[in-house]
């Protein structure tokens, strides 16, 4: 019994881990050079939503509530950074205040605890940076923040430890059937599987089509973000939303689990051919900036360290498409836009159980989901760090100055599967600080080259054609 999961984002990785509970073979097929590297799991708000946004009874509502409740424990098991910081939805007018009451009722119907509506003044007692124009606030104590890519990467690493196979640089180009099994054509050759789980994000409709399921379509919705230095990471402690519209939850301002301040996203629907165009635009940046300043007027641009865009996969039903397709043994996990990250642990459990109960798979005796990432140098006590350096001096060699990332940490990330600059960056935070890799990128490149035996010139930023260097010196002048 073999299950192929197409897509190594947070849904694919967590589902793979859930499947390794059972007696079956699991393989993740990921197009990009790394798990959690290509799509929505890498660039999103990193929010665990309390669960009051979705219409009661929808998949979004059901799985958000369940996933959000599971998240603390899943993050603890997988050593992914998570914090229950609470969230606030701001109202600037009486009309918006009335809308808050509706959200509150919806939250109660969805089973969300810890919801209340407070006045603007009460909210400013808790969050002094909020605009004076705010007249009331829906306060959700159970809202949280999570590091989406460490959740996905650690889940994939844990799944691997439990026997799953992870194939990167493996793009699915066709799905056929032979002797009752799926034959999946990929850029790395054919892969056979009894079940296929389609977790291909913005490409999920294309993948379903390959298998003969044309029941839904996916619209890529781009969202731009601005990320600020840790120096102002404490400007707000809650995740600050404005009132949602039909295009989503609007621009938020939030601390991240790593201590930065993040704002975004806007919402821009792209045509179907542009599914990976995560370019930022000046209009998008201006919109995000103006919206963020409306909520938190004290925000200053001086501490901006980077801007980026991510892509949400919006289905034509506007709900998560979960479960068996019209094609036998083909399971969709499509249209997983917000609150998809919050819902992901529950979705993964659900998808795995679909396969397990259909096949009556026995549980494996030796399943151990626990994954421990190398602690960050700055998270260790001084005595612990000193002892670690004595044991392995590479932990005394600091490569990334802004984020205090050591050579030992980077070598560990390479062992965990990082093959390029971004793979190291998303596992260690090297290059994520205020200088954005200006100092450490050449050194990270050297460490990858030496550790993997590759040429310097063959090391890329994020696989494919994203090479960093064009030549070794001496080869360019005739």
């Amino acid at each position, binding site marked *: 019994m073999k299950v192929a999961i197409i897509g190594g984002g947070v849904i694919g990785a967590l589902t793979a881990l859930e499947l390794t509970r059972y007696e079956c073979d699991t393989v993740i097929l990921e197009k990009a050079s790394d798990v959690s590297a290509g799509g929505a799991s890498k660039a999103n708000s990193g929010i665990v939503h309390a669960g009051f946004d979705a219409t009661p009874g929808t998949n979004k509502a059901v799985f958000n509530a369940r996933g959000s409740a599971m998240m603390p424990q899943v993050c603890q098991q997988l050593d992914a950074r998570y914090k229950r910081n609470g969230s606030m939805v701001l109202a600037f007018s009486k009309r918006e205040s009335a809308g808050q009451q509706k959200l509150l009722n919806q939250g109660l119907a969805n089973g969300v605890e810890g919801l209340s509506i407070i006045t603007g003044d009460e909210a400013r007692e808790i969050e002094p940076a909020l605009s004076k124009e705010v007249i009331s606030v829906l306060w959700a104590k159970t809202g949280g923040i999570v590091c989406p890519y460490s959740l996905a990467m650690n889940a994939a690493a844990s799944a691997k430890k439990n026997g799953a196979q992870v194939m990167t640089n493996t793009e699915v180009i066709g799905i056929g059937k032979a002797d009752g099994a799926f034959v999946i054509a990929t850029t790395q050759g054919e892969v056979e599987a009894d079940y296929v789980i389609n977790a291909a994000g913005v490409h999920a409709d294309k993948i379903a089509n390959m298998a003969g399921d044309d029941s839904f379509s996916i619209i890529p919705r781009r969202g731009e973000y601005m990320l600020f230095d840790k120096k102002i990471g404490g400007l707000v402690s809650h995740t600050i939303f404005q009132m949602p519209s039909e295009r989503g939850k609007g621009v938020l301002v939030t601390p991240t689990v790593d201590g930065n301040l993040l704002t975004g996203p806007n919402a821009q629907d792209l045509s179907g051919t542009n599914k990976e165009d995560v*370019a930022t635009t000046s209009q998008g940046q201006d919109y995000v900036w103006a919206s963020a300043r409306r909520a938190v007027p004290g925000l200053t641009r001086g501490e901006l*360290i980077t801007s980026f865009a991510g892509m949400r996969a919006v289905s034509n039903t506007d709900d998560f498409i979960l479960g068996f397709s019209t094609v036998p043994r083909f399971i969709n996990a499509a249209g997983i836009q917000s609150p998809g990250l919050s819902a992901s642990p529950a979705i993964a459990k659900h998808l795995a159980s679909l396969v397990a109960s259909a096949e009556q798979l026995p549980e494996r005796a030796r399943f151990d989901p626990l994954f421990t990432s190398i602690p960050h140098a700055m998270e260790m006590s*001084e005595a612990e*760090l*000193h002892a670690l*350096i004595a044991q392995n001096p590479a932990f*005394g060699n*600091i490569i990334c100055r802004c984020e205090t990332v050591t050579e030992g940490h980077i070598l560990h990330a390479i062992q965990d599967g990082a093959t390029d600059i971004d793979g190291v960056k998303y596992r260690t935070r090297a290059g994520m600080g205020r200088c954005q890799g200006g100092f450490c990128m050449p050194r990270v490149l050297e460490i990858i080259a030496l550790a993997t035996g590759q040429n310097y010139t063959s090391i890329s930023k994020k696989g494919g054609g994203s090479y960093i260097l064009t030549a070794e010196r001496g080869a360019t002048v005739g």
Partner: protein
Amino acid sequence: MVNVDLIVIGAGPAGMGAALAAKKHGVKDILILERADKAGGILPQCIHNGFGLHYFKQELTGPEYALRFARQIKEKQINIKLSTMVTGITADKIVTAISKADGLIKYRAKAIVLAMGCRERARGAIRIPGGRPAGVITAGAAQRFTNMEGLMPGKEVVILGSGDIGLIMARRLTLEGSKVKAVCEIMPQSGGLQRNISQCLNDFDIPLMLSTTVCEIHGSERVTGVTIARVDDNLNPIEETRQYIPCDTLMLSVGLIPENELSQGAGVSLAANGGAATDKYMHTNVPGIFAAGNVAHVHDLVDFVTEEAEEAGKNAAKFILNKKLDGKGYAFREKKTPSSAPLDPNEKRLICIVCPVGCEMSVYFDEGGNIASIKNNRCKRGLAWAKEEFTAPKRVLTSTVRRGNKWVPVKTKGAIPKALLFDAMSALKKISLTGNATVGTVVAPNIAGTGVDVVLTDDVEQ
């Protein structure tokens, strides 16, 4: 906890200058903590010349300038710990450092000189919209790859920002065979030294596009091009002037930011420029903590960093020895602002590079394009140089040569004809060194038949 009289953070020109001055003024127990595996700060990768004209009255390359101080540090037996990263400083002057050799170690100092330098402003801080491909690189990172690692960051390059590092790298990449298509500068004038515009851009016909910025980056995996546009008086791009330039690299030289995260941790106040605020004795608001060099303000010339650091080191010594801080102190020196463009169409201006005075001379041409007269030179040497500059220009060439899997910096001992620069580069590529040698050792006599030798600009050992 280890007690030390003076801790200097950083072994760049500021740190070494401060330590040497403190030693001279009576401090015996000094420790320099340096994160790199070599002293010199950023200077070892600045293989070009133009350093030392004010301080040493002669023109040196970056490695040569650094070596002069590094040798003195050794001679005066000042302790230095390399590959050691300071991760924290407190207001009561406890310094936490991490290294392979010592693990995590704490020092208590009587005084501290902050000399951490600065870092480059990155893409995020200047908000260029577009994709996030590989191939967007700061000038300093490109310089490190090219000069220290022997690796090329790009083939077809657009540079944004005309600061000195960007200009220097435009020349360096051109000499190494890359095509620098344009240098865009959002301001109406360049922030770089006049002579760098002359010797790094004009020499190689690289266009300097003023009041122009990069308004979009194209490419998803690697840069495929940039869109540039002229800007209006408010520095906003003018739509109609948008122009696409295909390239594989966007190099940024858009400013330097003093690196003061450690300073702030110790409670040091920052000035409006982001640098550690000091009085004229380079003393910060925290008693016993001094600051010098680019950590206080970004300097144009390293010579002035050294002078400022000597003041800081001297005063740190006085502080340790319980003497009063007095004397005239030190005032931050900015470079001469470039003069306005000449009004006379037959006039060209150039800044003399013969001596540190740096006269700005006016050279007048006759109808036939010959030199009619030269004014504003203060000596005859300048006159001769200006004539040569317009008839048979010569340049000192700096580059690197291979030594095993490393690269070491070299220069031509004197200027060679500008027309032979690329011939000399080709000849240097064939050289491969072995063994140890000291600065000044000839590695290629009579390069490209110019009669000029190529010499090492650093000690080479190990």
